[in-house]
């Protein structure tokens, strides 16, 4: 039996879904860990990014932070945090993933507020809006597309990296793959492949759903010009 067939057999066995530690359990863990990490990231990154941009400070810090987190391997934080004062369990995994969710959220919140036209801002000021009113009624609504884009990028990335929690036995769908590698590809090649398919499908599904969400919350005139250009390019190509 080749690997693809045994992966199919693995996915078709209902017990593999419903057993303790089965696919459904792992999927639940995966979603809980991902959602918590994104939530923590949101609570920290959005207010900070919006405030930095509103007050016009800290652009350099954000670039530095993104560059630095790009260089830190996820599994370094995943292994170091449980050994710190935080202790073992879900919290260190969630914190580690939240750290990687912050840069895209922060950068997009910052850019979203900064890109608001200076003239629009002046007009709002001239109409007598206070700093907070300006933020709430002008800057934030105009920043929505960027906030949504950051949310999508961060969420998809977290859903993908939650798979790595399995390296420290932290649960999630990656666990199916890691356990398979533990058994060896000769025995569990099918399980490894099945786990890979599940993890990949979940990430692509998250990407699709959030892309749709991003589109829904972005008013048509605010959709990025780049995409309009792409569509035009495709249209002329077809014609």
């Amino acid at each position, binding site marked *: 039996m080749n690997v693809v067939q045994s992966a199919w057999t693995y996915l078709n066995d209902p017990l593999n879904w419903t057993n303790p530690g089965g696919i459904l359990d792992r999927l639940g863990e995966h979603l809980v860990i991902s959602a918590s990490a994104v939530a923590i990231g949101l609570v920290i990154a959005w207010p900070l990014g919006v405030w930095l941009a509103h007050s016009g400070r800290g652009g350099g810090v954000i670039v530095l932070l993104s560059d630095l987190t790009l*260089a830190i*391997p996820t599994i370094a934080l995943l292994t170091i945090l449980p050994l710190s004062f935080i202790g073992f369990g879900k919290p260190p995994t969630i914190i580690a993933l939240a750290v990687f969710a912050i840069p895209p959220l922060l950068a997009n919140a910052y850019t979203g507020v900064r890109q608001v036209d200076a003239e629009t801002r002046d007009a709002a000021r001239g109409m007598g809006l206070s700093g907070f009113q300006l933020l709430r009624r002008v800057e934030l609504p105009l920043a929505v597309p960027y906030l949504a884009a950051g949310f999508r990028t961060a969420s998809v990335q977290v859903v993908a990296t939650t798979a790595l929690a399995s390296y420290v036995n932290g649960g999630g769908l990656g666990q199916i793959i890691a356990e398979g590698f533990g058994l*060896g590809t000769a025995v569990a090649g099918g399980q490894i*492949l099945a786990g890979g398919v599940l993890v990949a499908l979940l990430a692509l599904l998250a990407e699709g759903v959030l892309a749709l969400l991003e589109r829904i919350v972005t008013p048509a005139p605010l959709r990025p010009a780049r995409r309009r250009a792409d569509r035009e390019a495709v249209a002329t190509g077809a014609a």
Partner: protein
Amino acid sequence: MSLRDLAYQEAPNPWFSWDYIRTNSSTILDALGEHVTLTAEAVALAAVVAIPLGVVAYWYRPLSGPILVTSGVLYTIPSLALLAFIAPAVGPTKSTSVLIGLVLYALLLIVRNTLAGLNQVPRDVQDAATGMGYGRWSRLLRVDLPLALPGILTGLRLATVSTVALVTIGGLIGKGGLGNLILGGFRNNFFKAEITTGAILCVLLGLVLDLLLIGTGRVLTPWTRRAR
């Protein structure tokens, strides 16, 4: 308290230890070597595939959508899933399994930045080159690509730094360079010194390679410095 608990509690487990580094220098250097080799091979292979793809997307507009979408999907697929697809087919103990995943992952960053760099070449420069009698290929090699170099180098930098971090994933099958130290330390009764040594070296390697590429870029594109 049992004797075993006592022994565990009293065993020192510092976050950093020169002694560990001294006594294990050959293991650490091997891991570093594997890490550098995997990164270099992955970025080089990805560049060989991705830069031509960027050029194709630039020449044939209708293809730019499909090329970007395909590399985007590959980029969205979690690295662990890629490893799960590749390892059973290629061999679970071969570093080739890790290498293929790294290449697929680095593609998007290089393709996107190459295309962005090429798209930034000013229209009148292209017209002037065509007017001077440059053909498609000679214009590409002598005008478009040199002017797109900053974009291409940005792509290579992003790809290199993220590949350095990503190589560690291969630790799951024992082919993760410094990731072997990080995971090994975790499995080896939470040996903190081994974990932090691997992690610190990994971040440093990323920074050093990034600086190296920035330096290379400055040498290769002297006109961008004069403009500033």
